[in-house]
């Protein structure tokens, strides 16, 4: 199939060919991106297999699939539009964590991808209605996380998420990204929660997503990085606050 380059093509007096070849490789696909695409492909596989669960498609395609429909603006270009998406994303995170309960730990990544709404009694709409997104500007710390999270949970003023922080979330500000991230948390957290608060904040100086789930009188908090992916450890594991 290949044709040997002609002699004059091989000769490059400009030196640009060698210069371009010398540039460093971009490196492997980031795990968060790979996980996100793996999740999208898993949904495609589910759809192909005849699973017509209506909760799957609407979450996947408006957020990241550009094959049909209107183009999606990237997070850095339209930060404020992501606020609504973050609410939905947090709902998906909730669904994703719920899904963990029904999954075995040794399942392959592709089969472990939670199909939002498919394996839980909670619909996305139900969860979305329970999610509140805030941007308190708090720098949560390992030493004070419990108290800070409790304070955030008790704060009734949600405020408007800081666009700069939203921008920092990048691909996490998509249902796929946050679902992938939430899978790294694990545990049984979100069985029919009363409400879920998400703070677009920092943890020990690093951009983070702090989540507090309230069920009855119990509030469980955890913090995850904005670049987390499957297998990574959350900044703060789920704990009662």
């Amino acid at each position, binding site marked *: *199939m*290949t*044709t040997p*380059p*002609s002699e004059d*093509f091989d000769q*490059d007096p*400009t*030196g*640009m*060919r060698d*210069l*371009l*070849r*010398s*540039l*460093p*490789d*971009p*490196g*492997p*696909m*980031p795990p968060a*991106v*790979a996980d*996100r*695409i*793996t999740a*999208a*492909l898993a949904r*495609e*596989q589910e759809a192909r*297999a005849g699973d017509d669960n209506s909760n799957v498609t609407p979450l996947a395609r408006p957020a*990241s*699939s*550009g*094959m049909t429909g209107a*183009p*999606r*603006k*990237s*997070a*850095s*270009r339209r930060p404020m539009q992501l606020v609504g998406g973050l609410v939905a994303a947090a709902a998906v995170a909730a669904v994703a964590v719920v899904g963990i309960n029904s999954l075995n730990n040794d399942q392959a990544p*592709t089969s472990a991808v939670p199909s939002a709404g498919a394996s839980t009694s909670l619909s996305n709409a139900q969860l979305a209605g329970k999610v509140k997104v805030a941007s308190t500007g708090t720098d949560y710390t390992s030493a004070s996380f419990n108290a800070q999270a409790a304070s955030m949970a008790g704060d009734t003023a949600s405020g408007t998420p800081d666009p700069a922080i939203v921008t920092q979330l*990048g*691909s996490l500000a998509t249902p796929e990204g946050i679902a992938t991230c939430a899978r790294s948390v694990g545990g049984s957290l979100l069985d029919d929660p009363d409400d879920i608060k998400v703070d677009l904040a920092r943890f020990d100086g690093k951009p983070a997503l702090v989540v507090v789930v309230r069920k009855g009188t119990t509030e469980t908090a955890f913090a995850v990085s904005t670049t987390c992916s499957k297998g990574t450890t959350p900044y703060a594991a789920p704990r009662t606050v």
Partner: protein
Amino acid sequence: MTDPAERNDRELLAAHCAGDPDAFGELFRRHKDRMWAVALRTTRDPELAADAVQDGFISAFRRADSFRGDAQVTTWLHRIIVNACLDRLRRIKPTSELPEYDLADRHDVHGSTVVRLDVQEALGKIPEGQRLALTLVDMQGLPVAEAAQVLGVAEGTIKSRCARGRTALAELLRDKHGDGYAPAVED
């Protein structure tokens, strides 16, 4: 059933078309890094690249039966990914201009950041066709014939685009750094 990892690309694609639920995932795992590289080099923007690679693989998943077998699967994938990149780029700006993005990252450990950014800047100033040809042939290392298939043009077109692109790049860099630029970039 044969382990997907033991099958070649054509066998995997055929298995996917036949309903094997694991075959396409293996194709993705096998080629994701290469497709990520071409997408990142084409779009120069990680977010756009991520979206484009996802678009491309989803498209390939759905259109696997359109693969005619007259090219390598990787060539077919390259074509889909490059087209997805161009679609994404044209959505944000319907010209051949590239987004402003600093490609310096943790992989740059040779102190050649300035060189790389200058080259990236220069690449952003040459015509899209030349840029794509250089990306595929000089940066990704594709043979001319394969690049021609990816871009849907004749091999001679690829060669001429590469030649003109290299000349244009050299002029742009010379304008900025003078004649002594090229030797300075050698590691």
